[in-house]
């Protein structure tokens, strides 16, 4: 309904360069629903977050007669966030998490994609589906599932390792982060594998033919020809993975029901969530959210810059 009204209002807008009838206004009409939603639920919320982060609710008076008013406090919420040890710990934790999880997961996805693209694997489609299927399992369910597999009372994995004399504790303070990393690797390797594999499929086969005639083996071809050809896909997956790890929320949130070693401030996202909901401090939470956004942005730019440099060398 709102879409229809928006569409008529934009189509009435006059435009120069007449190329006949609807063609001038058509793109605006077509884009109207997206633009309305984009402004309403992306631009406005970001603006609101920025406004929140620059203000603070100040309480005056005591007891029942107290009143609160919102005052502009500049960057004080940001300095509060940046001097908050839990927030910084959480940030450090997800950066460490990403530094391990992203390379491991992408390496696995890449190896699988290369294997599926080579002649080495039979039943390619069956194996591909098995690897991709966990992606269809919602993160919350994946975390619940692995949560059971980590609990000594239920876990067949702990049983099996116990029978050969290893006694793992997947939920200890030092290991739980990597147990969470395992859940995310299990969930997202498939989709990254499929994206890389799709890119491999678009490489013209004649190139491989030429390499073979030149005497290059499978592994050499994979390293020297296939990987450079699909570099853009690898960079894209790396970029999305980095963004994903910084936003880590669902899995550790669910893990809280099986271990007390995941605090409610375990990751920046969880910290923001608890600050705004339980803590009721929207202003500080917004400042943290924007800081997290800036870190994400900076890292994404760094990933693309690094990839551009490599692209230039090639």
């Amino acid at each position: 309904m709102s879409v229809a009204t928006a569409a008529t209002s934009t189509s009435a807008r006059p435009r120069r360069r007449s190329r006949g009838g609807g063609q001038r206004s058509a793109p605006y009409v077509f884009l109207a629903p997206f633009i309305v939603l984009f402004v309403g639920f992306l631009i406005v919320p970001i603006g609101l977050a920025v406004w929140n982060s620059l203000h603070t609710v100040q309480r005056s008076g005591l007891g029942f007669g107290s009143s609160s008013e919102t005052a502009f406090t500049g960057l004080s919420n940001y300095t509060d966030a940046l001097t908050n040890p839990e927030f910084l710990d959480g940030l450090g934790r997800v950066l460490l998490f990403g530094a391990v999880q992203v390379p491991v997961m992408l390496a696995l996805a890449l190896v699988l994609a290369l294997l599926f693209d080579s002649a080495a694997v039979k039943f390619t489609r069956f194996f591909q589906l098995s690897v991709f299927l966990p992606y269809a399992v919602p993160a919350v369910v994946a975390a619940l599932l692995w949560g059971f597999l980590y609990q000594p009372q239920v876990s067949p994995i702990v049983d099996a390792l116990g029978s050969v004399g290893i006694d793992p504790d997947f939920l200890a303070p030092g290991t739980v982060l990597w147990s969470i990393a395992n859940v995310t690797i299990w969930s997202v390797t498939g989709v990254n594998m499929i994206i890389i594999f799709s890119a491999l499929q678009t490489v013209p086969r004649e190139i491989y033919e030429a390499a073979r005639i030149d005497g290059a083996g499978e592994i050499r071809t994979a390293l020297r020809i296939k990987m450079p050809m699909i570099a853009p896909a690898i960079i894209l997956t790396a970029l999305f993975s980095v963004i994903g790890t910084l936003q880590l929320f669902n899995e550790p949130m669910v893990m809280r029901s099986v271990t007390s070693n995941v605090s409610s401030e375990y990751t920046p996202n969880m910290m923001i969530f608890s600050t705004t909901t339980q803590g009721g401090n929207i202003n500080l939470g917004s400042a943290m959210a924007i800081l997290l956004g800036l870190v994400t942005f900076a890292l994404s730019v760094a990933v693309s810059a690094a990839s551009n440099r490599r692209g230039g060398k090639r």
Partner: protein
Amino acid sequence: MTMSALEQRSANRRSARVRRGDTERHGERPSRVGVAVVTVFMVGVLIYFMLPVYWLVVASTKSTSDLFSTPGLWFADLNLFSNLSRLSTYDGGIFWRWMFNSFIYSGVGSVLMTFVSVVSGYALAVYRFRGRAVVLGAVLGSMLVPQTVLAQPTYQLLVEIGLNNTYAGVLIPSLVYPFGVMLGYVYARSSIPTEILEAARLDGASEWRIFLSIGSRLMGTGTVTILLFAFIGSWNNFMLPLLVLNDQSLMPVTVGLNGWSQTAITVPELQTLTVVGALVSVIPVVLVFVGLQRYWRSGLTAGGVRF
């Protein structure tokens, strides 16, 4: 049983589809040792990715006491049906209400998300207009915005317009789907030749008609791929409903199950119900996923051209 059926189907598909790739593959002839190493690796991979799913199926058939006392990877007394009936009756059948809600959020949501993405992607790919670069930049840039930056202010906004704790409050904000728009753009650019559009224009067709009868059809495979990603994405939705909803009967199944898992510490019965519920909640997504296999395979390859 399902596995062999899948294999069968995929084998059929393979012979019909990726011919080009296959003939090349047979020409490469890898060494026997290489094949052995790869096979061992692939079995390991299969176990890693499928074992949790297998465990879930086995665990769903067990009573609460068997869940804790019998070996995890083999069946004990078959209690699947009694588990399912307890799942259906617990708390007045709230679980099915959650499933229904998830269907509304993901079903309605993904169809609308796909429509918006395809129409916008088409417009960006086919037309040259003022502001196009700005929209494209905004689409790409917004993919970098973390969900939390948006979640809290979105909630505030929803409270302001009175949509918190409603279906619309979860549904509408999730319709902003820049990734889908980008995919739509990529597919439209690689699948729609401009000559066809010009020809249709000369025949006097309106722009909307051209989109409906030519553009949207040429984008068919890509559309299904977007739909699949949108469906999985919204079925996965957790943080926003967690913030926006406080009425149990409006929650999607992810939020509901998480709640059960947290209460299971005090109510052991909920352990089993969480397990069975998790299994049931995954079935629709897996069905959609496997059923649309043919589309996402070719859809992603088409998109791969521009990635």
